[in-house]
């Protein structure tokens, strides 16, 4: 059991490490300028000069991927962070305390979940302006309810467990019980939720770009590149495939890593 957990950890760590290294590299150096146009090098298939080929503007896809992966990574991380922190806060209050706060917060969360996400994002971005930070904020808000819901379920379940009851009897404070006793119990579910959230954040960022409220061209995130590439699927399949592959690797590394960590924790 323990050994296997480490296997996941190793593979996940290697992929994530590699991706992170590439992303960091992308901050300082890319083989070509990610926005440099070259009309003589449009739609070139992968070659030694352009290892992922070039796009419809003759831009080097690898350079753009390096550049865009960084943006995507940071956006997704911030979005999940916002969603997770506020989700846990709201979810724990709703799940453990219940009553009126539960009623109100659940209603608000339900309304947000029930509201078409991009319309909400559009509203937030319109009010605050179209900067990357605001896109992160808009997406982050959209991610709160799903975390809150998951955590609420866990808290409601744990509340009835015997050791919590006994903790309550020994006079432990509400917040102590919530965050010291119950919260660690939700980690396994939360871990899964975070990896899924990361996955979803990358995707949401892509759909927002698709609808024109993501990163503005000529700059790109992996999501906006993927939606751009769809138009050239026939002419330049490597565009979509390479961008998609990088997204998959990014998510895969992250989720394998969390899988490994989770197993290691259990193994101990």
């Amino acid at each position, binding site marked *: 059991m323990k050994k*296997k957990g480490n296997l*996941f950890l190793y593979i996940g760590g290697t992929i994530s490490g590699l991706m992170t290294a590439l992303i960091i590299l992308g901050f300082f150096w890319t083989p070509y300028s990610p926005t440099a146009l070259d009309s003589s090098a449009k739609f070139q298939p992968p070659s030694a000069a352009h290892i992922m080929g070039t796009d419809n503007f003759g831009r080097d896809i690898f350079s753009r991927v390096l550049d865009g992966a960084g943006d995507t990574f940071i956006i997704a991380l911030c979005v999940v962070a916002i969603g997770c922190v506020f989700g846990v806060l709201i979810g724990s209050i709703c799940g453990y305390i*219940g009553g009126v706060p539960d*009623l109100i917060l*659940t*209603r*608000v969360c*339900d*309304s947000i*979940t*029930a*509201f*078409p*996400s*991009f*319309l*909400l994002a*559009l*509203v937030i971005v*319109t*009010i605050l302006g179209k900067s990357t930070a605001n896109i992160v904020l808009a997406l982050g808000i959209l991610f709160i309810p*799903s975390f809150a*819901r*998951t955590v609420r*379920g*866990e808290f*409601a*379940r744990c509340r*009835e467990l015997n050791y919590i009851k006994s903790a309550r009897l020994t006079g432990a404070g509400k917040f102590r019980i919530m965050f010291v006793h119950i919260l660690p119990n939700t980690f*396994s*579910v939360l871990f*899964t939720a975070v*990896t*899924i959230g990361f*996955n979803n954040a*990358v*995707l949401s960022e*892509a*759909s927002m770009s*698709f*609808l024109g409220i993501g990163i503005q061209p000529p700059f790109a995130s992996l999501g906006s590149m*993927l*939606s751009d*590439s*769809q138009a050239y*699927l*026939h002419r330049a*399949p490597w565009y*979509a495939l390479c961008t*998609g592959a990088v*997204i*998959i*690797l990014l*998510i*895969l590394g992250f*989720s*394998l890593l969390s*899988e490994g960590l*989770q197993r290691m924790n*259990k193994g101990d």
Partner: protein
Amino acid sequence: MKYAAKKLCTLIITLFIVSLLAFLAFQVIPGDPTTQMLGTEATEEARAALRAELGLDRPVHIRYFEWLSGFVRGDFGTSYSYRIPVSDMLADKLPITFILTIMSFAFTVILSIPLGILAGSARSKVMDVIITVIDQITMSIPAFFIGILACFIFGNIFALFVPGDFVSYKESWGACLGYMVLPALSIAIPRVAMTVRMLRSSILSESDKDYVRTAHSRGNHRRAIMVRHVLKNALIPVITFLAVSAAEIMTGSIIIEQVFTIPGISRLLLTSISGRDFPVVQAIVVIIAAWIVIVNFVADLLYQLVDPRIRLK
């Protein structure tokens, strides 16, 4: 019963908040429907006249309550762009999205529960590793990308499928369902992987619990333990997750409807937003919200059914 009635109440409150949000959203976003209707060439007078005709020159709260009272009576209003009753438009589009949603949800449940149980009960065996790895990879592929890949592989390479050649259920149910298989799978596949993963980890953590060990030591049959004890508890977070899934599939279909060019409700919503066709947006938002809220309501009921320890007053 009392619980259900209470839930129904909160359900209506949620829908009310949502509809209000949707109405207010357009107070913030610039642009109004006369732009879509009249274009750039129109004079300011023509625009003002049309605004008056549509009642857009009146204060927002009056318009909202008028809309609300109409909505309650089943009158969804008339589309600004198409000049036909919104209910007629929805009657056309709703079934399409509904088929897609139901289909991908069915795929998700049918595939994920058995696979999840399998993965959960086959712990520390080779199959577990295989399933976990496949699971992880599958989970990492965005539905959007699966859709693009499916179009490319089945549309371009094998030519088994004509992306964009959607056939409405009104013409042929078979062809319509056939067209929906790939989009539905595209939405379902990552969800299956997520659900399997969740169920598995839930089963694993549940199996390690003392009561399960006790049951084992008492010599109960493994399968009986699985069904009677482990699954009962392990399914709780999964049901919550599936409920959220059922809701998210509906919203997730927005992008998939785009990728596969399915003229469903999501696409109508997108174009209505850009056209500032308030009555249509308003109706669709409320319908999507209703779907999500009702699904969650059902989840809550199930949640109680599976685990009676939880008393949601």
